[in-house]
């Protein structure tokens, strides 16, 4: 058994995103991090390992720089590291076929990832991968425990907060929960540096990704807002309320 955790490296959420020549200027991004929701997936996977479930296999798909998030995962307890090297942007089908091959390679029947990544904000990978693999999928979970072939998860679904049961194999996509994320200790960091990374190309995994069907034409900055009107004190509220109606026409 064991858990495969999918990690995506993204610009830290505090990073300023600037545009250079109609593309996001990656060179200007000073800090890259594991996408925040993926960290909750990793935390839960390590908890499962501590309860005796099996190894944690951390998988990332991305350019060379993304190897760092595997080392970070190893520092808090990931046992095996898989890096699918991909230097160019991929569409959802390409990403899912690569991840699907890597999950099969790992032998894991439980997959955990964030409900969406902090760069594209898409949320396509979890349900798409589950469908590709023929696994079940439970989204927006905050806690997963597994006994035998059955998992129990807390999820925020369309009807509210629910306790659900699902048979393995399954993909779980994580929301931010109450779990405290563990920080690596010095020993963990030292050990992680020595941990080998299994690097795979699409070819190594036996996947023909073909061409991306989604071409990025341009990136641009959101339109600048023109300077607003500023008022001081609550005496200004009647005027602002009437402006909301007359000028902005929003109430």
């Amino acid at each position, binding site marked *: 058994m064991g858990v495969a955790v999918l990690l995506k490296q993204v610009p830290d959420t505090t990073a300023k995103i600037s545009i250079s020549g109609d593309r996001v200027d990656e060179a200007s991004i000073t800090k890259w991090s594991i996408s925040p929701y993926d960290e909750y997936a990793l935390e839960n996977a390590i908890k499962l390992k501590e309860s005796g479930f099996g190894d944690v296999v951390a998988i990332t798909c991305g350019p060379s720089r993304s190897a760092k998030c595997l080392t970070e995962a190893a520092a808090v307890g990931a046992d095996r590291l898989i890096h699918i090297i991909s230097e160019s942007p991929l569409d959802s089908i390409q990403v899912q076929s690569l991840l699907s091959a890597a999950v099969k390679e790992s032998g894991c029947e439980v997959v955990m990832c964030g409900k969406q990544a902090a760069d594209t904000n898409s949320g*396509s990978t979890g349900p798409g991968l589950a469908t590709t693999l023929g696994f079940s999928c439970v989204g927006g979970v905050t806690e997963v425990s597994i006994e035998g072939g059955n998992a129990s998860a807390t999820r925020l679904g369309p009807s509210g907060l629910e306790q659900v049961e699902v048979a393995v194999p399954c993909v779980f996509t994580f929301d931010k929960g109450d779990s405290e994320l563990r920080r690596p200790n010095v020993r963990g960091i030292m050990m992680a540096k020595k941990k080998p990374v299994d690097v795979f190309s699409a070819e190594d995994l036996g996947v023909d990704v073909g061409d991306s069907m*989604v071409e990025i034409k341009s990136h641009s900055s959101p339109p600048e807002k023109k300077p607003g009107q500023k008022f001081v004190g609550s005496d200004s509220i009647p005027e602002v309320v009437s402006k909301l109606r007359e000028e902005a026409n929003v109430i």
Partner: protein
Amino acid sequence: MSVTVISESSNGALHPVTAQLVGAASSLGGSITVICPGGVGSSDAANIAGVTKVISVEGDCFESYDCVAWSKAISPLVEGDLVLSSSSAVGRDLASSIAASMGVPVVQDVTSLTEGFSATRPIFSGKAIEEVGISSPCAISLRANSFESAGDGGNAEVSSVNVSQDITVAVKQALAKASERIDVSEADIVISGGRGMGEPANFSHLEEVADILGAAVGASRAAVDTWGEIPHSMQVGQTGKTVTPNLYIAVGISGAIQHLAGMRSSKFILAINKDADAPIFGVADYGIVSTWEEALPVLKEHLSDLLSN
């Protein structure tokens, strides 16, 4: 061309975003099939102008939410080269899963769409805009309030399809009901509070203003991280929800970069903060330098006067 729209539902009825999905589909031309999962709102969907036909897909699997089971029930009914859904959590799930089962790409949270297809969408929670060209059949989820709604007056034929699809996800226990309040990502007006609200109990003052306006109540990350009583589902910003309401009211929110990313595309922004130098004023159309304790009672009074007339 033909387009399949997956309808959105909430509280057992058709969600208004469905008419926006049909509106977007109409602008591309061709026939429009609306699939209603669990049959919810199928007669209302038939009344939306421009709809060619409605398929009410029914079966035991729709009694609770199981993304892969729903998608397996829906996918065989899809017609044409484009599947549209809402970019709600369920809409995104279904778009992803249906796309994967059809072997086509999915593009999420699109805010404009033209024939061919060319689509734009915010990335990094709105810190940048991406334009993509899609050269194949695909599934696309659309952000609420970004497309004109189709009107009513349609008279499409409704057919029912019964599916027997095994569900693998079983609900054992309901822990808390979904909030009766409208979600921040769907509301026309959002009022959010930050750590400047002092304590979570003071969010009741925001709720009172929200009730007058029919608004959703949101929160900054600082408020969600500080107070367990404020759920993450209310969080607006890069690790929460990205919102584009007509009016966003920020109260006691200084305006960290992650928060600004999630709300700066709102049509109009009103900020109330006691610190005249707070970064939130940099994106506000209307800024009021005041404590919330002074401002909210006056705001409440004037709004209720105005809106009760």
